[in-house]
């Protein structure tokens, strides 16, 4: 049966995913040196690779979707996504581990899960099976990493003030993501 996406639309989304996964793994890699908590440092290193691998999966999928120059479609969905990543990567100080983790595990990764799940459920099971296989691999990592991140956050947030800090940063990022319309822009999870 036909899916919701034709080849061009699938390639456009995959290009947006690759761009977003790249920005995420670069940010996670950069933050490793800036967090003092040893357990967080180790998890960021592992998760950095998970997202690099997702970017590689999407990089390899693009030529199969008739995009022979993968760099051409490796683009942010829109300017708001660029701004989202800038604000996500803003915290650097050693005292800002909570903000770093909130941005990734309470905002960015839940949006990846939503985007990938929508794509998984609405593309053709037969014609787009290779994308579905990659989405399944990526989704498994996203769920595992989200759980790790939430565990780390709950262990770090110990006071009402820290709850407020986490919530404020989450709200700031969510508003930008709302403007972006999701990782693949408006229509990321339908309704555009």
């Amino acid at each position, binding site marked *: 049966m036909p899916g919701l996406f034709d080849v061009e639309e699938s390639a456009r989304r995959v290009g947006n995913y690759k761009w977003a996964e*790249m920005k995420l*793994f*670069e*940010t*996670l*890699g*950069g*933050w*490793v*040196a*800036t*967090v*003092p*908590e*040893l357990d967080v*440092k*180790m*998890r*960021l*290193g*592992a998760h*950095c*690779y*998970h*997202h*690099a*691998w997702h*970017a*590689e999966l999407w*990089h390899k999928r693009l030529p199969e979707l008739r995009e022979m120059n993968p*760099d051409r479609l490796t683009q942010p969905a829109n300017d708001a996504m660029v701004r989202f990543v800038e604000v996500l*990567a*803003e*915290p*650097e100080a*050693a005292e800002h581990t909570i903000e770093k983790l909130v941005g990734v595990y309470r905002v960015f990764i839940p949006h990846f899960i939503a985007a990938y799940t929508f794509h998984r459920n609405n593309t053709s099971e037969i014609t787009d099976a290779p994308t579905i296989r990659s989405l399944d691999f990526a989704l498994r990592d996203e769920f595992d990493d989200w759980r790790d991140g939430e565990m780390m956050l709950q262990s770090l947030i110990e006071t009402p003030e820290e709850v407020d800090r986490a919530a404020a940063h989450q709200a700031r990022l969510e508003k930008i993501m709302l403007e972006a319309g999701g990782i693949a822009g408006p229509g990321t999870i339908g309704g555009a």
Partner: protein
Amino acid sequence: MRKFFPVEELARDSRFTQINMRQAEADPRTAIVGPSAAKRAKVNRLTPARPDASEAARNLMHGIFVGEIQALEGAGRTCHDFELPDSKDPKATDTVPFALKLDMARQAWDESRHVEISVKLGEWMGSEIGQFAENTVLFEAACSTDPVMRLAGVNRALEGLAIDVFTTMKEFGEIAGDPYLEFCEDWMLADEVTHVKMGSDWLRKVTENDPERRAKALEFQSIVDRLFSFGGARSESDDSPIGLARRFRELAGFTTDEVDEIADVSLAALEARKAFSAAAMSSNGTASDES
């Protein structure tokens, strides 16, 4: 977040005490000249037969642990610090190919596991995090603004040293009858060979059409190699605590000539240390006490 993170700002919890190479070299317990030099004259390959074997092995294991943290941080920073090549400026030296970033992310994951393994091995050997000072020299080598220098200094020189260290520790575990140490070191050694090979391959590929840049990178690697041959701490002689793992280095992309050069530099450093120590013992009249 800034590009290029300074070594002085590496984030650590309160258990850690950081020192630089200069401070490490000034440590009287490991100095190669001065009053304590004579006591080091008998320093030789790390084996269970050495009277100070337990403490020396714990010290080395802690050194591996903090080295793994810095290797993790360095690989992560290389994912972040450099942009992808711009087709309008193909000769730029501050960009890295996408596939190189992927390799660095893979290395970050490997080093994360090594940190975790090292924490557990440290506990197993009876030491605690922060029991020994952390020399931040590895991350210093990962601070270069030229990614090729990082490959040469970190992946080739320092990860190459890690091959030597893991081989020595694996042998130590084997002789001491410690299957946990032997097992873990062997797995980490496999990863390190991969990391050095990544460095060797990328160094050649990125500098394929830029012999001058390649020569500079190899010169930097040589400087780092010399730094870690200081005092003959690593050589093919049994008088050095750490051996030179020739076979694994060749698997990792070192040519025979390159390994020979490191062997020569290391041996020369060892001979220099012996000469200093002999002179110190002679002037202190301690030679007979050391036998």
